[in-house]
C-alpha cells in the first residue's frame, strides 16, 4: 500500500503536466492547454501543483511524521482545485479531473494514516470517491431540479403555484361536466367519516381511537374520491400507480403461492393457449401468395402441434412453478413500453382482440386503461420476484406445527401464511407503485396525461414547469420508498435470505389451486399474445390491415437501426463494468465497514433507487448541459446515466449476497494481515463471483432496456434502441418498431440464457439478483 501513496501523486502530476485542463467545446482531450501551460495566466494552479509535489516528497517519510503534513497538503490542493473548477465553471478536461481525483485519493489515505478515519487507506479513499460521485451525479442533478422548481434566482414558489393551479396538473371541479365533482368528493368524505365512526362504535373502540379512525377514514375516502372524480396528471399517475400496484401484487401473490406450492401438472391448462398459438402460426405461414391454398392444412398442423406440446408437458408433469421462472425473467429483458406498444396490436382499433374477436371499432382500450394493462403485465413479475422469495423463506415447520394442532389447509393459509407474507405484500405493493410512477414509455406510447410524460413534454419550452412536475413525482416516489424502508425496517431481514426453508410446506386447498391455475392460464395466454403479436407484427406487412408474411421490416433494420443497436450494445457494455465495481465497493462499505459518512453513502445510493428516471433525466439536462460538468451530447453522459441508474440494483444484489457470507471469513483474512482491498479481492470477490457475473449481465440488460432518463440525453450522434423504437412508434412504423423490439428481446433472452447456463456451470448458487 506504500506504493499507492507514491503512484497517486505521480499520476496527478502526469495529468497536470500532460493533459488539457479545460475543454473548448464538449469533446474531451481536444488539445486545450494543460495545467502546466496555464500556470502563467492562472497562478492559483500553483496550489495543486505544489500539493502534488509535496505529497510525493512526503511519501518517502515514515508514517507518523508524514501523515499530518500530507493530509494538509492534499486536502488544500483538492479543495482549491475543486473550488477552482466549480466556480470558474468552464468545461473541465481530464487534466483537471485526474488532478482532483489524485489529490482526493491522497487525502483519503492521509485521513486513514492520521487515524481521523478509523479505516484502512483503501476504505478511506474509496469512501471519498464514492461520496464525490454520489454528490456529482445523484445529489447535484437533483439539487438542480429542486433549484429550478423553486426559482433559479432566489426562492420563489411562482413556478409551483402556476403548475399546481393548472388544470393539467389536477382539477377537481370540471366546469364542462354536468355533475359537480367537488360535491361528489364531499359526499364520499362524509360517507367515509360515517363508516369510520360506525365501525369504531360497533367495535367499541376507545374515544381517541374512534376520533382517529373517523378522521383517517374521512380523509382516505375523501382523497381517493377526489382523485377518482378529478382530472389531471397527478390524479392519473396516482390512480394508475395504486390500481396497477394492487393488481400486480394480487396476481404476484397468486403466482408465488402456485410457484412454491403447486404440485399439480400445469399441462392440462395449456391445451387452449398452445392450440391457439399453433393456429396463429399456421395462419401466418399460409398468408403468403405461394402458400395461400394450404391454409387449412397449416392451421390444422399448428393446432395439432400445440395440442401435442400440451400433452407432452402434461406427461412430463411440468408444474406452474417451472413456467413462472421463465415468465419472471420477461420484464427484465423487455423495456416496459414494448409491452404497451405490442398491446396496440391487440387492443388498438385494428387489434386482434378489439376488432378480430370482439368486432369493435374503438381505441378506447388504449389510453389510461391500456397503460394500466401494460404496466400490470410488466410489473407483476417484479412483484412476483419479491413475493416468491418471501413465500419460499416461510419456515415450513410453522405450517407443520399448525397442522399438528389440527388446522386445515384454508386455516393454515389464513392464520400462518397470510400474516407472514403481509410485510412482503406491502413491500411488493410499494415497489410497484414506485415503478408505475416512474414509467415513462407506456404513457408516452399509449397517450394520456401523466406526471412522467408531463416532465418530458414541458422540458423544452418551460424547464421550471418540468422541474415542478419532476419534484412532485420525486416526492411521491421517495414517500413510497421511505414507507417501504420503514416497513422493511420493522420486519426481520432474515426472511429474505436465500436460506432453504425447513419442514414440509402444506399444499394449497384444492379449489384455490384450480382457481389460481386458471388465472395463471389467462395470464400465460395474454402474455403469450403480447409477445406473439410483437413477433407477428415484425413479420407481417401491416398488422390488422395486411396480415401477409413479409421480411420487409427485418430487412429495414439494416438501414439505420442496426447501427443504433450496436451503439447501444457498446454503451451498455461500457457502463456495466463501472456499475459492478461501484456496486461491490459500496455494498462492502455499507455492510461491512463502520466509518464516518456511511449513513450518507447508504442513503444516497438507496435513494437513487427511488428517483424516477425522468427526474434524473431532467436533472442531468439541467446540471450537465453547461458549466464545468458540461457533458450533454456526448456518449459519456449516456454511460454516466446508465452507471448511476443501474447502480442501486447492483448494490441491492451485492448487499444481499454479502449478507450471506460469514463476516468471520473477512475477519480471518484481516487477522492474517490482509488489508481490506486484498480481502475484497482475494476472499469476498471469489465467494460472490456467480452473483457478480449476474449483476454484470443485469446491469448490461437494464442499460439496454432503459428509456425514461435516456430520452432526455440522446443526441443525433448517440441514439439508443429504446428511443429508436419509440420514435418509430411515433412515426407509425409499427412493423419496424416490432422488428427492432423483437431483435432486442431476442438478443437479451440469449444473453440471459447464456448467463444462467454459465453461472450454473460455475457451481454457484442460483443467480441471486434482486430486482
Amino acid at each position: 500500500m506504500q506504493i499507492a501513496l507514491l503512484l497517486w501523486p505521480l499520476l496527478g502530476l502526469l495529468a497536470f503536466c500532460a493533459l488539457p485542463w479545460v475543454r473548448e467545446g464538449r469533446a474531451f482531450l481536444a488539445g486545450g492547454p494543460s495545467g502546466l501551460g496555464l500556470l502563467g495566466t492562472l497562478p492559483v494552479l500553483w496550489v495543486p501543483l505544489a500539493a502534488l509535489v509535496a505529497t510525493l516528497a512526503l511519501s518517502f517519510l515514515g508514517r507518523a511524521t508524514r501523515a499530518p503534513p500530507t493530509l494538509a497538503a492534499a486536502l488544500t490542493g483538492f479543495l482549491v482545485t475543486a473550488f477552482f473548477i466549480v466556480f470558474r465553471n468552464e468545461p473541465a478536461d481530464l487534466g483537471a479531473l485526474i488532478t482532483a481525483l489524485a489529490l482526493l485519493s491522497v487525502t483519503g489515505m492521509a485521513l486513514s494514516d492520521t487515524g481521523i478515519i478509523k479505516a484502512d487507506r483503501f476504505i478511506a479513499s474509496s469512501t471519498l470517491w464514492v461520496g464525490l460521485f454520489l454528490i456529482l451525479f445523484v445529489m447535484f442533478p437533483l439539487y438542480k431540479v429542486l433549484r429550478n422548481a423553486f426559482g433559479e434566482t432566489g426562492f420563489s414558489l411562482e413556478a409551483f403555484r402556476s403548475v399546481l393551479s393548472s388544470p393539467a396538473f389536477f382539477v377537481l371541479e370540471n366546469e364542462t361536466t354536468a355533475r359537480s365533482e367537488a360535491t361528489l368528493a364531499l359526499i364520499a368524505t362524509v360517507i367515509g367519516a360515517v363508516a369510520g365512526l360506525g365501525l369504531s362504535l360497533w367495535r367499541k373502540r376507545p374515544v381517541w381511537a374512534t376520533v382517529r379512525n373517523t378522521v383517517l377514514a374521512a380523509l382516505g375516502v375523501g382523497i381517493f374520491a377526489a382523485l377518482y372524480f378529478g382530472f389531471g396528471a397527478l390524479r392519473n399517475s396516482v390512480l394508475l400507480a395504486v390500481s396497477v400496484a394492487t393488481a400486480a401484487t394480487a396476481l404476484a401473490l397468486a403466482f408465488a403461492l402456485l410457484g412454491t406450492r403447486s404440485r399439480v401438472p400445469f399441462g392440462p391448462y395449456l391445451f387452449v393457449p398452445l392450440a391457439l398459438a399453433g393456429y396463429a402460426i399456421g395462419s401466418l405461414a399460409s398468408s403468403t401468395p405461394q402458400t395461400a391454398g394450404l391454409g387449412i392444412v397449416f392451421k390444422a398442423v399448428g393446432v395439432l402441434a400445440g395440442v401435442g406440446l400440451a400433452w407432452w408437458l402434461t406427461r412430463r408433469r411440468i408444474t406452474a412453478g417451472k413456467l413462472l421462472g421463465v415468465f419472471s425473467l420477461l420484464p427484465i429483458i423487455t423495456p416496459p413500453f414494448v409491452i404497451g406498444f405490442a398491446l396496440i396490436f391487440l387492443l388498438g382499433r385494428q387489434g386482434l382482440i378489439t376488432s378480430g374477436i370482439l368486432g369493435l371499432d374503438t381505441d378506447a382500450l388504449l389510453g389510461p386503461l391500456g397503460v394500466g394493462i401494460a404496466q400490470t403485465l410488466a410489473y407483476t413479475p417484479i412483484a412476483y420476484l419479491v413475493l416468491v422469495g418471501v413465500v419460499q423463506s416461510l419456515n415450513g415447520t410453522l405450517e407443520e406445527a399448525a397442522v399438528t394442532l389440527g388446522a386445515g389447509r384454508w386455516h393454515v393459509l389464513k392464520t400462518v401464511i397470510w400474516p407472514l407474507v403481509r410485510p412482503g405484500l406491502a413491500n411488493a405493493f410499494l415497489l410497484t407503485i414506485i415503478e408505475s410512477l416512474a414509467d415513462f414509455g407506456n404513457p408516452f406510447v399509449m397517450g394520456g396525461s401523466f406526471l412522467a410524460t408531463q416532465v418530458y413534454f414541458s422540458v423544452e419550452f418551460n424547464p421550471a414547469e418540468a422541474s415542478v412536475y419532476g419534484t412532485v413525482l420525486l416526492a411521491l416516489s421517495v414517500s413510497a420508498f421511505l414507507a417501504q424502508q420503514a416497513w422493511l425496517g420493522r420486519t426481520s431481514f432474515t426472511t429474505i435470505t436465500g436460506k432453504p426453508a425447513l419442514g414440509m410446506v402444506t399444499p394449497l386447498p384444492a379449489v384455490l389451486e384450480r382457481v389460481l391455475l386458471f388465472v395463471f392460464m389467462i395470464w400465460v395466454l395474454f402474455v403469450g399474445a403480447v409477445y406473439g403479436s410483437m413477433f407477428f407484427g415484425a413479420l407481417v406487412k401491416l398488422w390488422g390491415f395486411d396480415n401477409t408474411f413479409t421480411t420487409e421490416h427485418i430487412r429495414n433494420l439494416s438501414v439505420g437501426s442496426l447501427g443504433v443497436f450496436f451503439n447501444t450494445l457498446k454503451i451498455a457494455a461500457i457502463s456495466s463494468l463501472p456499475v459492478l465495481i461501484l456496486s461491490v465497493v459500496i455494498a462492502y462499505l455499507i455492510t461491512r465497514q463502520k466509518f464516518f459518512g456511511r449513513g450518507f453513502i447508504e442513503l444516497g445510493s438507496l435513494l437513487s433507487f427511488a428517483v424516477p428516471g425522468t427526474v434524473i433525466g431532467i436533472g442531468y439536462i439541467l446540471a450537465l448541459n453547461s458549466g464545468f460538468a458540461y457533458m450533454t451530447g456526448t456518449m459519456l453522459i449516456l454511460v454516466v446515466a446508465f452507471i448511476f441508474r443501474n447502480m442501486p440494483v447492483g448494490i441491492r444484489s451485492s448487499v444481499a449476497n454479502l449478507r450471506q457470507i460469514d463476516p468471520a471469513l473477512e475477519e480471518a483474512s484481516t487477522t492474517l494481515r490482509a488489508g481490506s482491498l486484498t480481502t475484497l479481492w482475494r476472499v469476498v470477490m471469489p465467494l460472490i463471483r456467480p452473483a457478480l457475473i449476474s449483476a454484470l449481465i443485469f446491469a448490461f440488460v437494464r442499460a439496454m432496456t432503459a428509456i425514461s432518463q435516456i430520452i432526455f440525453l440522446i443526441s443525433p450522434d448517440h441514439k439508443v434502441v429504446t428511443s429508436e423504437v419509440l420514435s418509430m412508434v411515433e412515426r407509425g412504423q409499427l412493423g419496424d418498431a416490432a422488428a427492432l423490439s423483437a431483435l432486442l428481446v431476442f438478443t437479451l433472452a440469449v444473453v440471459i440464457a447464456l448467463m444462467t447456463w454459465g453461472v450454473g456451470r460455475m457451481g454457484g448458487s442460483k443467480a441471486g439478483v434482486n430486482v
Partner: protein
Amino acid sequence: MTATQSRPQTSVSNPQAAPVKLEGVTKRFGKTTAVQSANLEVQPGTLVTLLGPSGCGKTTILRMIAGLETITEGKLSIDHEDVTQLSAAQRDVTMVFQSYALFPHLSVLENVAYGLRVARRPDAAEAAEEALKLVGLGGYGSRAPSQLSGGQQQRVALARALVMKPKVLLFDEPLSNLDAKLRRQMRNEIRAIQQQLGITAVYVTHDQAEALAISDVVVVMSAGKIEQIGTPEDLYRRPANAFVADFVGEANLLQGTYDGQKLGFGNVFLPYTQPGAPTGDVRVLVRPESISFSERGLAGRITSGAYLGAMTEYTIETSAGDVLIAPPSEATILPNGSDIHLDFRSNGLYILPA
C-alpha cells in the same frame, strides 16, 4: 495452600513470545457497555483463558486484542508496544475462529498459506505444509476444507493461525462446534502445541471444565467486568466471590458460623482456620466432593436423586441450605424423603469474603 503449588508455569522457550497488557480497556456499543475498564496482563508464553457466560464481554476483549473491534477507552499493548490505534491487519496477532472461517474457495494448503501469500513470502507453500504437519494434517493440503471433518477443519484453522508465527494467538471458542470426545482431544492438542511453541495465547470459552484443563491463568468475567484472575486451582479452591464459586465447578453455598477456630453448620462444628476470613455468620463454599454421607453430622432429607453411572447426584435439604453431593453409585439409590446425615472434610471448604 499458596499460589506456588499451582501448575508450574510454562518455561518461556520462545524468545519471541510477547506479553499483552490491557489497561482500563472499555468498550461501549452505543449506550451499552460491553467491557468495563478491564485490566489484564498476559505473561509471555502463557495461555490465558477468558471464561464467563455468554454476553459477559469475553469475546469483545478477544476481538479488541485482535483489532477487530475498536477500543472506546483505555490502552492495549502487545510486546510493550501500544497498539490501541492499530488496525487488525497491522497487528501481529492471529485468531482461530469459532466457525473456523476457512475460505471455501481455497484448498487446505492455500488456506494455511493465505497470510504468507498476502505478505508475499516466497516460502509460503513450504511453510504452510510444515504447519499442516505440525497439526497432524501433512498430505491433506490439496483437499477442499469441506472435504474434512470438523476436527480436521479445526486443525487447519489452527495451522493457518500458527504459520504466521504471531506474537499472540487468539482462540474464540474454538471447540464449541465439536462433539464432547473430540473436544477433549483437541483441547489437549491445542495445549500441547501452545506449550511446545511457547506462544502467548488468549483463549475464550464458556466451558469451565475446558478453561480449567487448558489454562495457565483463567480470567472469570461477568456482565462486562472481570470478577477474578487466577490459576485454575485458585478459582476452584479460593473463588473471589459467589459468582466465581458458582460458575467454576459445582458449588454448594451454605450458611455457616465461624469464630476463627471452628466452622459450624447447624449443630455440626468442625475445626477450621482460614486467615483473613470474616467471622460470625458466613457464606461457605463447599464442593460436592468434600461432603459425604455419615452416621452423624448435619441432618438432611433427600429431595431428588439422579443416577449418572459412576456417581449418583443427590439434592439434600438441610438447615444450612440445599446441598448437592455426588458420591460413587451404590447398589441401591436412596429414595426421596430419606433422612440422612452429612459429614464435611475441612480441606474442601472456603469461607467467601464478606
